[in-house]
């Protein structure tokens, strides 16, 4: 869809349109509330652009199919919610280990377990970071509006392809089901991002070569490169190894590729942070509530500001520290029992009072609740 005219669009629909605009050619999924509209739109639209949609037998299989399609050269994605995200974790770890570019959308609902299917939550913040075992590279993006869901889905594909890694799009139910008036733009090739394919000699090709930028060129199936991919810790040749010095080298490369590319990964928004003595840190719908609260606080003469990580993992800590330069109090509103606050305490806790504002009742944090916390901090 390329339109200069504004349209009313749902967050989940915007995600599907963003994926197709980003060149997604493969979707495997198992519909789950509140993410099902993504599968619905992909099922309808993907075949029209020559793509493949498969409704798999379960969440585990859909993540496996996405990983396989990615290794086969496709730009691949799936979408789920908390219970399905839990099931996907093992294969998500496999995708990280095999360095299979893919996009996994988690539209968060109330948990634990099957929890509250139609109620919003932000309780997968830590699952996105630590849900799969082992030290693994993680990128997670948390959009806060319908236009941002569209744009960040495109960026998720770009980061996944360029960095050869799974990228998680962490959306809360409110944003996933929210309809907003948006104007979409078609991304150019640079915005879509390209995978680094293997070129040149097939002789002595190393599918997991340690390269300057930390990203091994990927053998395109059919191009004749000899390649092996496995979830076992592997050397540059792709075959399993447990030699300590080799393991250290390849694992440092795998984890280091994220740190090495923070310039394109990190993304955040600051609202009135420069002189903010009270800083609110929030994502998704909680950040929208925080923006309203900060605006109201400013109108009452309270120096409040908002720091909103758009890329949630890795946490944009240098930017957060700059935003909090003048802050004495940091308020962290979120729809869970306290997850983002742990990272904020780690990064900003030294010398500052960090206060959580939590809701676990299936209702979003209201602007008034954040405003109250700001006023208490001022007093």
């Amino acid at each position: 869809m390329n339109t200069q005219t504004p349209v009313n669009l749902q967050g989940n629909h915007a995600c599907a349109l963003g994926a197709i605009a980003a060149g997604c050619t493969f979707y495997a999924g198992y519909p789950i509330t509140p993410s099902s509209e993504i599968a619905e739109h992909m099922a309808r639209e993907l075949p029209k652009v020559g793509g493949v949609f498969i409704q798999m037998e379960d969440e585990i299989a859909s993540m496996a199919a996405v990983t396989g399609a990615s290794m086969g050269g496709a730009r691949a994605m799936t979408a789920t919610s908390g219970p399905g995200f839990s099931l996907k974790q093992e294969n998500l770890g496999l995708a990280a280990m095999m360095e299979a570019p893919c996009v996994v959308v988690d539209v968060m609902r109330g948990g634990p377990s099957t929890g509250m299917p139609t109620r919003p939550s932000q309780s997968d913040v830590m699952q996105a970071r630590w849900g799969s075992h082992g030290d693994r590279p993680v990128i997670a993006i948390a959009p806060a509006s319908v236009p941002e869901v569209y744009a960040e889905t495109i960026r998720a594909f770009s980061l996944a392809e360029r960095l050869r890694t799974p990228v998680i799009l962490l959306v809360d139910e409110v944003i996933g089901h929210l309809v907003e008036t948006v104007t979409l733009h078609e991304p150019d090739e640079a915005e879509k991002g390209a995978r680094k394919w293997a070129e040149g000699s097939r002789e002595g090709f190393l599918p997991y070569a340690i390269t300057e930028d930390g990203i091994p060129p990927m053998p395109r199936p059919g191009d004749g490169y000899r390649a092996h991919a496995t979830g076992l810790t592997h050397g540059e040749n792709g075959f399993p190894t447990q030699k300590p010095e080799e393991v250290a080298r390849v694992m440092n490369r795998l984890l280091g590729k994220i740190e090495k590319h923070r310039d394109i990964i990190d993304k955040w928004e600051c609202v009135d942070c420069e002189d903010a003595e009270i800083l609110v840190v929030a994502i998704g719908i909680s950040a929208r509530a925080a923006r309203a609260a900060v605006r109201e606080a400013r109108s009452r003469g309270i120096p409040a500001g908002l720091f909103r990580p758009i890329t949630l993992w890795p946490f944009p800590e240098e930017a957060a520290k700059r935003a909090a330069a003048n802050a004495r109090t940091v308020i962290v509103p979120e729809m869970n029992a306290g997850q983002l606050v742990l990272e904020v305490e780690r990064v900003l806790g030294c010398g500052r009072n960090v206060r959580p504002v939590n809701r676990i009742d299936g209702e979003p944090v209201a602007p008034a609740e954040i405003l109250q916390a700001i006023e208490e901090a001022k007093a």
Partner: protein
Amino acid sequence: MSTRQTEIRLSGSGGQGLILSARILAECFLRQGRKVAQSQSYEPTSRGGLSRADVVVSDDIPDYPLATALDYLVVLDQCAVEASRDMIRDDALVLVDAERVTEPLKGRFRTVSLPFIARARALGNERVANIVALATLIELGDLLPEGLLEEVVRARAPRRYLELNLDALAAGRELARRERADAQ
């Protein structure tokens, strides 16, 4: 500087077509060049349980897209009364169904009880009560230029239900005119 946003809620029981009505209303405001944020809350059943759909209308993308202080409220089932009780503005217009809302909200706001569901039933299908109520709301609240709602309904309604929907619009407008005449 933008004017204050307008907050509208359509509420009732699951299956009454409230989200669809909100989408139609949002489409009307879009055609007016306004910015809308439309949200909803419902239970994991295909019919029954509290269901509500909100439309927040403004000139710019709002900071917070969800309703916090309602200017207009439609209630088509008693089960939806409680959810909105504490967020109705004093100058709000509240429309309730005469049959299904037995204990309407009381407050400084204006409450009007009208037979939306009975009128839809008389048209042959209770399920167009949402469109009857929407037409009444727009007319009584003076929310949109005349004809715009019909334009959007014509564009969105399945062909075999178009006549029924147009009849529902007429019934809703009629209810509004009669209410207005009674009030004078």
